[in-house]
């Protein structure tokens, strides 16, 4: 079982020194029934469509990805995580095909048309403005459920 204490020196130091943000009160939204869930993925893998502007190293912005987009590249600043999984199969980091299957089998209602990518290395406080934009877009699209995934 890998806990921070088990990690090698440099990575352990960096990860254990990250600032932990405290919120005044925890957020909680009661979920809609499974049959009504319209799901969007929010990834912090800094993926974008080929030809789009690469993410800057501490990017506060985001990229929108259509559920049918497969011609994606990754411009995440970090080099410490495995990139060979997503090279082989996008579903290893953004499971758009798997969610579509769950929609077809009735385990969720539907998959959103648009999904979102952020740069995981950036300070999340700096992402609030972008998050608000994403919230507006998801509301317009009738999304009620968000699946967040790191890389």
């Amino acid at each position: 079982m890998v806990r921070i204490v088990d990690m090698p020196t440099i990575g352990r130091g960096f990860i254990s020194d990250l600032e932990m943000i405290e919120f005044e009160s925890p957020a909680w939204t009661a979920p809609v029934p499974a049959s009504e869930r319209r799901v969007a993925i929010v990834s912090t893998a800094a993926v974008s469509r080929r030809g789009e502007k690469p993410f800057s190293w501490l990017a506060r912005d985001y990229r929108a990805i259509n559920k049918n987009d497969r011609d994606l590249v990754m411009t995440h600043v970090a080099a410490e995580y495995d990139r060979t999984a997503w090279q082989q199969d996008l579903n290893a980091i953004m499971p758009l095909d798997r969610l579509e299957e769950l929609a077809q089998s009735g385990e969720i209602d539907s998959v959103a048309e648009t999904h979102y990518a952020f740069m995981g290395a950036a300070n999340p406080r700096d992402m609030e403005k972008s998050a608000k934009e994403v919230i507006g877009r998801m509301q317009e699209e009738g999304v009620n459920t968000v699946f967040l995934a790191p890389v």
Partner: protein
Amino acid sequence: MCVLAYYFEAAGFSTVLVGFVREHIEALEPPRALWLDFPMGRPFGKPNDPAYQAKVIRAALKLFNASSGPVVVDFPDIIPVKDGRMGYAIPPEYVFTTEEIGDIDVLVEEVQSEIQALLPAYESARTFRGRTTVGASELAINELAPYIAEFVKGNKPKSPRKGVTAIPLLKLVVEDLNAYYTEARTHRDNIDDFELLGTWFWEESKAGKLIMWLEAVSLESDDKVLRQIVDMSLITPRFWSNGPLPGTSASGW
């Protein structure tokens, strides 16, 4: 990511996340979280294994059954990692000094030959998968090694890409070169082992050697940004090493 979950949940969405660092999940208390004891870079476990991916997703969606939170649940499976490291790391003792750098033009030719030899496997992989992740830099495959070589020679070439300056482009070029090799190899040999692939690319291939030379030159560069991104393991993967790159303090972190 836990903070993004908070923003979305507070705006009226129900959220669930999967995450790798349990202590952070415990500290940040997102509404619903599934902890994965997996290496980083594969939050849905295994590429080309739809059943496994669906198992992770279903375990996460199950957290919506909780009537109150925050909820943290451990996914029952473990994907083991080597020595607690969450990704491949170059051995700390594997370094080049600038005195050890040989004829860069010869090395570039050797890299171009490697690239050529891998081309059928790369093209086959691209066709089979219907996609490639190579191309973030937008340089052609045969332009990657010469671009890196300019930095090894002590030059700072003008970025050919509008809107991306020379050093950020260098990072994308390095990643494109790495992705070209690993996309080809994973397909050709039907392997999914990032430790093996990391060892092969960084410690055995000529392309890896080219980037190791780049690392050696960058550490002595007058360019602060170049020096810093190498010190911070943003060019060569040393984040999970058991010590800093010799000659540095890992002070960037």
